[in-house]
């Protein structure tokens, strides 16, 4: 359980969304600048688009400084699972 405030920086504008998780249930709503959250994630729009398309990895974006995060880092680690991975030739094994 937890909540993350996303701040999507688009030029001079910043869009904010509050994502709340509760045991697999997920809700998304627009957020005010002072909305309380366990974790804050801020990046340029292009970075978020890359993450959503599976072209960028949240962890390396964070290490490079392209993504800024504050608050509970455990939540951030769990959150980055939501983003798709890159294309992979990999499928489940035949016996599955």
């Amino acid at each position, binding site marked *: 359980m937890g909540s993350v405030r996303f701040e999507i920086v688009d030029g001079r504008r910043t869009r904010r969304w509050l994502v709340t998780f509760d045991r697999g249930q997920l809700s998304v709503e627009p957020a005010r600048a002072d909305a309380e959250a366990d974790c804050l994630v801020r990046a340029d729009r292009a970075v978020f688009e890359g993450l959503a398309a599976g072209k960028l990895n949240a962890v390396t974006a964070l290490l*490079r400084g392209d993504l800024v995060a504050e608050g509970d880092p455990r939540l951030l680690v769990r959150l980055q699972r939501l983003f798709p991975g*890159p294309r992979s030739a990999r499928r489940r094994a035949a016996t599955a």
Partner: protein
Amino acid sequence: MNDGLVKILDGNTFVVSDDRGDIEASPTDPTGLFSFDTRFLSRWVLTVDGERLSSLSVDDLQYYEARFFLVPGMGTVYIDAKLSVIRQRAVAGGFHEELTLLNHSDRPVRLQVRLEAGCDFADLFEVKDALRKKGRYSADVHSRSLVLRYERASFKRATVVSATARARYDRDGLTFDVRIPAHGQWTTELHVVAEGQGGVLDARDPKRALERMRRNLERWIDAAPRLECDWGPLRRTYRRSLVDLAALRFSPPITGGRSLPAAGLPWFMTMFGRDSIFTSLQALPFTPELAATTLRALGDWQGARSDDFRDEDPGRILHEMRYGEMTAFEERPHSPYYGAVDATPLYVVLLDEYERWTGDRSIVRELEHEARAALAWIDDYADLQGTGYVWYRRRNEESGLENQCWKDSWDSISFRNGKLPGFPRATCELQGYAYDAKVRGARLAREIWKDAELADRLELEAADLKRRFNRDYWVEEGEYFALALDPSGKQVDSLTSNNGHLLWSGIVDKSKAKAVARHLLGERLFTGWGVRTLAAGEARYNPIGYHTGTVWPFDNSFVAWGLRRYGFKDEAATIAAGILEAAEFFDGRLPEAFGGYPRAQTKYPVQYPTACSPQAWSTGAPLLFLRTMLGLEPEGEHLVVDPALPSEIGRLELLDIPGRWGRIDAFGRGRVEVRRSR
């Protein structure tokens, strides 16, 4: 045995210097101040009036603290000791050094004291592989500090050097003009702080952090069971293990300050799936909290998608996590890298073993999803050949690992004739771990998750795996288990220490165990100190081959545990005695590996040349040997004690063993006569 380097550390921040306290790192040399896999000081050289100093002595105060006694001059025959210099340093919220000069003459002196500071901001991977940097360097000289900077696109790192005494700062360091009265002294504190993306990497107040670390180390030692024993070397080894394990604790940013065992100093101060799990298993009867943190942190990072670069699959447990520049720019896959095939089944093994000891059912419920995903990974993603076994083949051909089992060097998996098999490979111990994971997963499913259907299925699968394994891996003429299957299903027929891990996992048919035990204590595998990774007589056998003939204390601790599981108490005690006697030669600190020469030939264990030390699973080995020798086994709500100790140990008491029973004492008396010649 000593490389002449002085190392202090706190988590993944560490300082490695020479015995004067100086750092003069070459690009390939692992000295310097490191934090989060990045070097933040590569040059730190003290001079007095332009002259270097020489070392009289070094005190290793604690793992995070050291003191150097120095005099001017460079080791000539006669030292004019009118002046002495004390450098006391610690790692806690950065790197701190208290520099004191003592004037022993009856006249005041004027001196110029200089510290040269420089930094290459090398990624630990660059230090290992001698690679060039791609970013830009700069330096800001302020009146009270020097800031060294490195930038590559949005990636920024900086080192801030400052002192409490007045100094002149320049781009290459700082200089103090010092006047010391007759028989007087002068002191300054120096602070070096590493800055990463989000500011200071470790913002703790150094004085308070240091005080907390002191108290924490005392508490750590106090909380562990007390060992009383007639045999002095074992007492020393035990104490050394506890202190080193404290030093190897690492709090990844996601654990809220709780720690898990990192793999080793200096290269491996990070989270490794395999090493953290094995060390947590070894330390379970002594410091069970390490296992809890390991399970949670590895669960947080559990794979969620298929990513070829990182060898990631849903449910897979990570191999290695890194934070440096090459990882940030995806020149290395460690964000994290998932290329280990044993960590995932071992994750379930650790979860079950942790609950058996501690009775902490809440963590089994908390991590139910992760444990189920790990069990599903074994069947859905690891069976690359569709033959019902666990296989590995890397998908990252460029920087991934070829061998994804614990023997991960390039030539570790070979046929008797030395030929290397193709990929994928299915090494034998992986099948044992998968079997054990299914058996233990079934228990968790039945007793805690209340999922009888899953429990039944896992038990059936385990029984089927055991039956097939004992048929397909058994080398009939040699009476041991093959090291692996090659892609065509043919046995990779070398005799190896992996047989011991098979006993530990329980996958071995009772009827075959005796022959396996005979091999483990036989002339080809047992050196008199321990069990070799690869048996003498195999084509690639080499007593100083990394995974092809050396003796690994960690490996042996699991081999002995396995022997014990099948009732070979004396054999287990023999191996325990050999390794613990070897520890005496290393001041109680077992190295990663030592030479596989017969004991009678070398008289002392020959340390493997580049082994890293202290290393977590070597540090944990004596702890697991203690458990094995005392025959400690949780049974329901109780702890069963069934000792079989080598005779030279005499009386052994392990007091206040923590577990679901509260705290309990175990006693034993040495009776096993150990055969020592080889």
